[in-house]
């Protein structure tokens, strides 16, 4: 086909493409969801109290929200269309079930968020204050709903329910939509992702506010934001962890191989210990290890001496059930992704906890080290979100739909040259956009808001509608 990419298969190119697109898209989406809610809260506070500090903060974080929103939208189109482009055999196999939430997501969520955001951006002064406030809440609700449908679709890939396989077409056919919407995997994963998104918004707002508090910019307004953001960060980090824990228990039942890979647990154990850190080989000969006794059993089964299945035993079981082949995902990637995600999650709980303690002690503004730490911690949820998805998606391999369709049978029958072209093209575009976006976000985030009186803020508009 194409001599440049000879030897590289369509499959591996398509997998890289999917991974890069998904991680890139999901850098922006959680911040959209989290900041959307935060801006809605700030505007409500402004509306209720008439306090201009809240009004300034609504506009300040509103600007950041919009820059971020734009990239989330445009990468979302690729996210939806790449299933047909790169994964056409997957699309035919799952369309009956997977397509429905995607279509409903468009109809229920995307229309809502885009339309009401349009009203929010351009309607200030054009619509009443009450309608303007309602429009940000509806846009925020739209972002929250959109996450629900895509998570229902993804959860079906992790744990298929409510379907039969059509014997003539070999497609998965939906038999129970309610089962798809109440999939235990979905309920846990949606909560986890939603809390993670609020956490991303909370930690971001806290970090930005902390920066300005340190620089003595508009201390009243940023102090208020920091207090709200600390509460959001603490509540949502604890919520994320709690639901992550119930996901682990489901995982041990539904995808024990992913759980075993996350722990690099080669052999079934009762009262299994949790590996906190490993240097060297993840198998039998590590150079250095820290292990917490019994903790893995508690995490996976909720009992002190519960049995956690190991990779070797699970592989044997899988070959007996599905035929010869390897059913083990990339262990090192699962192991480390899981640790990075959980480690940063714990740090974020600490961030929220220490923050709250400083607020209670009335020492927040006087703690430059905490404020500096909070600003650096802006990066944490983004990294944790990315590795969370890498773990979830890599850990399911070799399956694309768990137990039903392997990834190698899901890819489109197309020339690797095509996929290479779009892989290079999209990666270049994403890199370019990331540089522009991060540059813009930094500029806007670092610029202190102009303190204006209400009269000044109601100046003559440059354009009317």
């Amino acid at each position, binding site marked *: 086909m194409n001599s440049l990419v000879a030897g590289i298969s369509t499959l591996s190119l398509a997998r890289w493409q999917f991974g890069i697109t998904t991680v890139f898209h999901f850098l922006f989406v959680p911040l959209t969801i989290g900041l959307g809610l935060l801006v809605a809260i700030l505007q409500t506070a402004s509306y209720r109290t008439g306090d201009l500090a809240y009004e300034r903060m609504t506009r300040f974080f509103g600007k950041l929200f919009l820059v971020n929103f734009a990239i989330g939208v445009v990468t979302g189109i690729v996210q939806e269309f790449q299933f047909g482009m790169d994964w056409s055999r997957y699309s035919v196999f799952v369309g009956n079930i997977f397509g429905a939430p995607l279509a409903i997501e468009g109809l229920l969520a995307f229309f809502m968020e885009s339309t009401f955001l349009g009203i929010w951006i351009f309607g200030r002064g054009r619509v009443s204050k009450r309608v303007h406030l309602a429009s940000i809440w509806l846009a925020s609700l739209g972002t929250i709903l959109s996450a629900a449908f895509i998570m229902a679709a993804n959860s079906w890939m992790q744990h298929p329910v409510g379907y039969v396989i059509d014997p003539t077409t070999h497609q998965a056919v939906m038999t129970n939509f309610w089962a798809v919407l109440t999939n235990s995997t979905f309920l846990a994963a949606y909560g986890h992702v939603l809390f993670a998104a609020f956490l991303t918004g909370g930690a971001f707002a806290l970090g930005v506010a902390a920066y300005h508090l340190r620089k003595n910019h508009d201390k009243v307004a940023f102090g208020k934001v920091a207090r709200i953001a600390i509460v959001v960060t603490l509540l949502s980090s604890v919520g994320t962890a709690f639901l992550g824990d119930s996901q682990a228990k489901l995982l041990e039942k539904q995808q024990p191989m992913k759980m075993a890979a996350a722990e690099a647990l080669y052999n079934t154990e009762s009262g299994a210990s949790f590996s906190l850190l490993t240097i060297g080989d993840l198998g039998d000969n590590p150079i250095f290890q820290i292990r917490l006794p019994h903790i893995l059993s508690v995490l996976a089964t909720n009992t002190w001496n519960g049995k956690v299945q190991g990779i070797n035993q699970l592989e044997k079981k899988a070959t007996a059930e599905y035929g010869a082949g390897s059913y083990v995902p990339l262990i090192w990637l699962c192991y480390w992704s899981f640790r990075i995600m959980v480690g940063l999650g714990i740090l974020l709980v600490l961030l929220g906890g220490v923050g709250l303690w400083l607020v209670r002690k009335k020492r927040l503004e006087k703690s430059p080290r905490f404020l500096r730490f909070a600003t650096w911690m802006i990066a944490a949820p983004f990294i944790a979100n990315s590795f969370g998805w890498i773990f979830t998606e890599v850990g399911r391999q070799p399956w694309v739909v768990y137990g039903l369709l392997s990834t190698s049978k899901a890819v489109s029958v*197309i020339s690797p040259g095509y996929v290479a072209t779009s892989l290079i093209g999209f990666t270049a575009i994403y890199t370019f956009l990331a540089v522009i976006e991060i540059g813009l976000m930094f500029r806007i985030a670092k610029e202190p808001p102009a303190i204006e009186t209400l009269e000044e803020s109601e100046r003559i508009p*440059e354009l009317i509608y």
Partner: protein
Amino acid sequence: MLALISTSPSGLEQLWFALIGVLWLGYFFLEGFDFGVGILLPFLGKNDNDRRVIVNTIGPVWDGNEVWLLTAGGATFAAFPQWYATVFSGFYLPLFLILAALIFRGVAFEFRHKREDATWTKWWDRAIFWGSALPALLWGVAFADFVHGVPMAANYSWTGTFFDLVKPYALLGGLSTLALFTLHGSTFLGLKTHGDVRQRARVVGKALAPATFAIVTGFLAWTYLTAHNTHHTGLVPPLLPIAGVIALAGVGWLIRDRLEGWAFLATAIVIVAFFTTLLLNLYPNVLVSSVSPHFDMTIAAAASHPYTLKVMSWVALIFTPFVLLYQTWTYIIFKRRVGHPSPGEISSSVPAQR
């Protein structure tokens, strides 16, 4: 032929073919003028202020308009998985170009005014132009290909290359949509702006109308003749393309007589007639094979099972009215012409964010 007769679509499948058709029509009607506005931006915007006015005519609505595409894509995935899979993988490169264009265009609307820097704005305005022109052309190419046939063999396997997709008929289809959307954009701008920009939109519209008429009429005639001679269906009522052509012939007169609202309605009718002709021409297929009629993909063969279609029908029935209501409402909120306030309006006006 036997295969075609034995697999005629059920009522539910026909409904979903129609609904997906409506989603595409909505997309092309709405984003059609977005594309036109983007294409006309460098020609009608003589200075920075004009360009801001032009971009702001679609500012509050373009994103909502683009969701029609996402919903059409999602609904096709759900209702006709085989269609979605074959088209999206088969039209790989054109689709990649469309997506890249839509990415740049979308962020450009948000980014262009984020820095007070003429070079910065100039580059994003270029992104808006190319990001509008490229999809406006390529969507026409793709839809013409659906009708005239794609290199698809047994089991819907793709046998051709990119160059099989850019035949003369398809290129004429692409030119048609490019011209039509640009004209649609000019009638929209005539309706939504004041003064100089409005005047220039009128001049451009008048100049574009005859050329668009020639291209689109040629394409529709070609489409209609093929439908009768080569394909078997003839489902397209002749009145439909004729109505489109008549509406298109009227656009030039309406613009000349300053009947801007009617001119916009006329370009909207042309777009609806144009794509309805193409979609009805496809029926009862969703994709025609240029290899052999035996390999055509029928609606019935591409469709999901009845259960999925029923679930989707209920969801669509319940929620579509809300979407239509609030989307119409935004056009009512932002119904005024975009421009600078006259002295009398200043006292009552309030801040706009940009």
